[in-house]
């Protein structure tokens, strides 16, 4: 009898684990989910609402894929986990035995106890059900005369873009005094502020929500702003003030939790044969500059790739490589490689270049003493992941990175390139006299 691996959650973390376990072994695999029958890409929910895609397009694997790879799908909502008898109990009363359990239940939108936060028309934008809910409450600008979004993060700006695509007026409340400035350096954050306003989104910085008011039927009627007491009538309120691990059903089990499910570097919980990965896992100690809970697509996938090894008798630590991430702020693409903090840390500094007209800029972070390259944020220029990964491994210094920047450009062919302009500014700033190096395929493809 094959070992039975049960994975709760069919997001990117759980599905990646399942796929890799199947590549490596013949174990029996079951994926449990209450959200949707088959895996879909959560990051693409916005494009369904915007009419770029249909739900089926967000499913990376055709429906026959699961049968063919002998990955069982069980639709159901787990009520509790009994780790002594290795049994999952479902809300509907049925149960499922496992030999090894992987918790990959992802996140849920934060709610901070605002009055009215559970009214009809208040929603996050995380689950498939949130999308259905939005479609119900904001199908067009006749039904939804205005929407208010609470919280200026990556999901908040995506929700704003979604509503904007159907010409629904949006008021966007952001606690910080500039958009996402806990992560973005000032110049970039301000560029995004401007870009949001250019899209006719009513961006309110340094603004908090006091309460959400209800009409007679329990629907959202308006919101009140904490600072000014202003009342803004609206039909939909989007709560996008971050996410937290979706682990309520674990609270009564013996599995140790903090904010998330506590795991060690092998992604093991305190209970043998129970693992946690993705958004819902919390490292005992942060890894490098990373946060203990990483709610990022890429890290979920990496944990899945890693854990599959451990499950298949090749015990492997979760040891992620150089940090990278990406996002899109309305029309502006953003990529980051290595670490660029909003405010340079001790002994660090930033070099910033911005196009005089377009929404294109980069911020490069480096060590002041050694001039070592630490990371780059790029807006409106695509960069090559492999090149920056290599440069970070090789501990390249700023002069090198700036001279060879053409190797890293990943914009489509014929696009205007800005490396010379960037280097000129660098030379002027640092009083250097570096010459730009031509792009070289040989360098691009040589391994670190």
């Amino acid at each position: 009898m094959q070992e039975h691996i049960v994975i709760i959650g069919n997001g990117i973390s759980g599905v990646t684990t399942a796929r890799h376990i199947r590549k490596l072994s013949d174990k029996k695999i079951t994926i449990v989910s209450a959200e949707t029958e088959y895996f879909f890409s959560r990051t693409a929910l916005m494009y369904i609402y915007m009419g770029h895609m249909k739900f089926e397009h967000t499913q990376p694997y055709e429906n026959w894929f699961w049968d063919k790879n002998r990955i069982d799908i069980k639709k159901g909502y787990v009520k509790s986990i009994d780790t002594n008898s290795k049994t999952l109990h479902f809300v509907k009363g049925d149960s499922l035995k496992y030999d090894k359990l992987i918790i990959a239940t992802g996140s849920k939108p934060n709610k901070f106890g605002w009055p009215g936060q559970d009214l009809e028309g208040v929603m996050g934008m995380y689950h498939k059900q949130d999308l259905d809910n939005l479609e119900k409450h904001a199908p067009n600008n006749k039904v939804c005369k205005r929407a208010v979004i609470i919280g200026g993060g990556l999901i908040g700006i995506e929700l704003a873009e979604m509503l904007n695509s159907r010409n629904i007026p949006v008021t966007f409340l952001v606690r910080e005094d500039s958009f996402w400035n806990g992560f973005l350096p000032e110049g970039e954050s301000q560029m995004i502020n401007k870009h949001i306003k250019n899209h006719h989104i009513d961006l309110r910085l340094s603004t908090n929500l006091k309460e959400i008011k209800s009409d007679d039927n329990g629907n959202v009627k308006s919101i009140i702003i904490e600072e000014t007491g202003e009342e803004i009538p609206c039909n939909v309120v989007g709560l996008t003030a971050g996410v937290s691990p979706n682990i309520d059903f674990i609270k009564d089990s013996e599995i140790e939790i903090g904010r998330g499910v506590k795991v060690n570097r092998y992604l093991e919980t305190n209970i043998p044969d129970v693992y946690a990965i993705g958004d819902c896992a919390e490292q005992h100690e942060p890894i490098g500059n990373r946060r203990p809970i990483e709610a990022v697509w890429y890290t979920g996938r990496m944990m899945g790739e890693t854990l599959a090894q451990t499950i298949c008798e090749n015990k492997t630590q979760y040891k992620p490589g150089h940090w990278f991430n990406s996002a899109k702020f309305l029309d502006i693409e953003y990529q980051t490689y290595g670490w660029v903090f909003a405010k340079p840390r001790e002994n660090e500094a930033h070099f910033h270049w911005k196009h005089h007209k377009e929404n294109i800029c980069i911020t490069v972070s480096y060590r002041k003493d050694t001039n070592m390259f630490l990371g780059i944020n790029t807006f409106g220029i695509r960069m090559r992941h492999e090149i920056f990964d290599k440069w970070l491994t090789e501990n390249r210094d700023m002069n090198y990175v700036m001279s060879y920047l053409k190797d890293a450009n990943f914009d489509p062919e014929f696009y205007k390139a800005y490396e010379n302009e960037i280097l000129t500014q660098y030379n002027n700033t640092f009083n250097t006299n570096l010459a730009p190096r031509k792009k070289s395929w040989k360098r691009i493809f040589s391994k670190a």
Partner: protein
Amino acid sequence: MNAIKHIGLVIFLIGLAIFSALPVLGTFHLNEASFNNIIKEKNIKSDVFINDIKSNIVGQDFKGMQAISPKISKALDNANETHIKNKEWNKKIYTKSSDMAALIGKKSANGFIATNKGLMWLLTFGLGIIGALMFILPNVILLGKKGIKNDGIYHESATNRGWIGWMVFIFLVSFYLVLYFASEYATNWTLLVDPISEALSGNPAGHWFVYGFMYCVVMTVMAVRMYIKYRHNIYQVFRTTSVLFFQIVFAFIIPEIMVRLQMPYYDFKNAFPLDYDFFFQWNLKDLINNGGIGIFIMVWGIVLTLVIVPIMVYFFGKRWYCSWVCGCGGLAETLGDPYRQHSDKSLFAWKVERYLIHTVLLFVLTMTAMTLYSFFSETGTVLGIKTSTVQNIYSLVIGSIFAGVIGTGFYPIFGNRVWCRFGCPLAAYLGFVQRFKSRFRITTNGGQCISCGNCSTYCEQGIDVRAYAQKGENIVRSSCVGCGVCSAVCPRGVLKLENGPEIGRINPTEILLGNDVDLMDLVNKN
């Protein structure tokens, strides 16, 4: 702005309605002299046919092609029946009845349409162009800032296989059916463009001239739409310009001017085996009889297919042909762009694609081998099979129905590259080169893919781009025509079309960049 769009739409629809009604309008009156000219020109020896036409058609007024055409075809059938019965082979008429009707129709059209060609052009093409541009141009402002403009594609009836999509489908299919199988009904359309044809080649227009002219007009108007939609993406702007240039100059103007200069009609960019009749006997004879220029075309045609095409594919991928030069590709990338999302991405569709396109390639090669054998050995049959029968089947089934009626007619239903993906033998040939010996690939940017699916959705060739991107694997598929839209719609900057060294071009990966280096080394060993 929206008002301009709506007025434009109404104007366009009026132009389209008049154009669509023309096949059954107009008056025809064949006089004795014109008919005698036709007899002479076509060398008609059938007294049965001549007498029939003279007593039933000449000197009479007919309203609409539907009144005159059946009589001509009946006369033709009767005459041939008689001659076959009497074994009078020299009297049999080999012209198809719809061609005969088109010829007589053209010579006998006499009413309002025939005498007001310019005005009628304005009421059809003119209104169509003006209306379409009024519909398209306001998008410069309405679409807002530059960026991806796919909002609402799956909410609109026209682009989501709704009733508008089906109406467009019916129109396109009907248009191609008239063009290929009932060209006499295109007679009035040919009248509209007579002045243009006469200015270019010196001859009155036939229905293929109508098609060529319309092709250029549609591509130009829809290219304006492309320029506006993709104005942030210079690759799309260049590509659209290129494909438009090759259509208008190489496919339309140069061949017409060559006719004026008494040279053979030839499209210098149309490579065999897409140009499937290049080696047909009549074409080879025509080229040989045309002296220097004919021989040049013959050599060029062979060099184009055997040398230029594969070498260019080696350096740039098949995109240089399929989405920068080719006429079929040109229409697909302009008129067809709103429908690119309808291509089927399933594994099943990919299987069908491989069987179908390679069968067509095999078909065209076999047919050409038979043709050349027949040409040099001067026999009509190969192994007991008539070469001309095989040629006729290919022309009908592949050349007309697959490439035309299905290829373009089904745009709103199956996407804009049905022919290029499932049928084009040239694409199959270029695909082999691209897959096995080329510098072209779509590079996947390390581990940046978020599996959103925009790339796959908007791939007109039905490639599941995401399946590769989410594995960190470059895309080297033979069917990729390099339109660059996957790269354009990617919200994370993951895809880049590029030509680079062959080493590392194909890079299967299990674990993506960004994870533990040791783990990547362990699992990605290749």
